[in-house]
């Protein structure tokens, strides 16, 4: 539950950042330059910088597409013909590994560079995943606290039946009580972190 909660917070508090990373490539005549990269679930602008006389095809394959490609079945999520330098907009449906292929259709060795500009946006898939983790954690915590709650209820029933409860007897500390304290401290911590993020 804690992991899920803080994955969510990490993405909510710091997901509004754009960034750029780039790399050079050389592609042999009528061959392919292939590289695998990690992309998040947010809009990207891919800048392909090549000579003006370059002619080729640009492909992007997702994880399943890469698996099919190794079996020689091509199912790209994006296919674009490129003639000279180009800007390509691409938004992955999910974070993960993506294969980028530049296929040369010119008879000479071509060099170029690809820049990936990550635009500012929230990653929705990681928020969905963190919500699932939180729910699984919550369910596990609830299931784990059932025996304690049962014991607590049985103890209270027995005490009531025997009428042995003294007026100054303190409430027995139970698992739900501890969970309440832990939850309150997590909320406090989250608020502090949000405050520091806001200050920064």
């Amino acid at each position, binding site marked *: 539950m*804690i*992991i899920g*909660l*803080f*994955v969510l*917070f*990490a*993405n909510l508090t*710091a*997901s509004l*950042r*754009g*960034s*750029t*990373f780039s*790399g050079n*490539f050389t592609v042999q005549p009528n*061959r*392919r*330059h*292939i*590289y*695998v*990269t*990690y*992309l*998040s679930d947010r809009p990207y602008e891919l800048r392909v910088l090549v000579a003006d006389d370059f002619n080729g095809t640009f492909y992007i394959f997702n*994880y*399943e597409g*890469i*698996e099919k*490609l*190794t*079996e020689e079945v091509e199912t790209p999520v994006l296919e674009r013909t490129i003639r000279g330098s180009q800007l390509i907009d691409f938004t992955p449906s*999910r*974070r*993960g*590994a993506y*294969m980028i292929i530049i296929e040369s259709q010119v008879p000479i060795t071509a060099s170029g560079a690809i820049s990936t500009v*990550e635009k500012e946006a929230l*990653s929705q898939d*990681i928020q969905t*995943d963190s919500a699932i983790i939180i729910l699984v954690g919550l369910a596990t915590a609830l299931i784990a606290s059932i025996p304690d709650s049962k014991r607590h209820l049985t103890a209270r029933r027995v005490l009531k039946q025997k009428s042995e409860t003294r007026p100054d007897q303190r409430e027995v500390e139970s698992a739900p009580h501890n969970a309440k*304290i*832990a939850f309150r*401290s*997590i909320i406090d*911590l989250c608020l502090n*972190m949000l405050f520091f993020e806001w200050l920064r």
Partner: protein
Amino acid sequence: MHGLTWDLKNLFRFPFPEVMLALFTYITFLPRGGSFSFTVLQESLIWEEITRKLAFYTIRDAAGFSFLAYLPLSLFASIFVTLSFAYEIENALMKVHLSHPISRRNIFLSKLTSCFLITFLTFSGSLLAYSFLRIPENFLSVIFSLDLISKLLLLVALETLFITSLAVSFSLYSGKASVSLIGSFATFYFIQVLSENANLEFLPPIAFRNQADFLFAFSATKSAEVTSLLAAPVASAVLLLFSYLYFSRRLQVS
């Protein structure tokens, strides 16, 4: 075993392990620009090779956080060790422990293991969560890359061992909770400043980054570099030995 359970319960009285897990998860999952990318030859498009490489890069990224986590880890380890050793010496709780028919070695080991386990499990838990959630489709490859996971756990264990051993030494020799907490954390901070400003690569946290680079390297490392990599583990072992000898033979609890 009984002593270990008691010590773990003692440390779990406070929500520090939960806070640690939260903090490490927050640090590792903060989105950051740039990521791994690797070239694949057209002739060697083999699915198993690609998934293995993805697992490698994911776990290597996770190992990179050993550098970032140094100060938070030091802070929490100082708190745990202070609660487990110096606080109990100061409040004469240690006297109660020592009055039981348990050897000093067992008491020392149970206290050390409980501090080590809490820091190790929370830190490795957040790093493993990062490795599994980074590329969700590839998590099976990560699970089956046992060699890479064991390298990651070894790295975390070495870092935790160094931090715990230094904090234990400080806690035992000072014998006072306030001195132990502030002194050990100040020492960790001083080591970091020294390591970064004087470029002393054998000192943490740069040493941990070098260990990560060594464990997840593509090429062989020079023997001179290996010597500097061993400095932190050797220092941990020496500190632990001295702490154990001091605890078992010299420690006087009034």
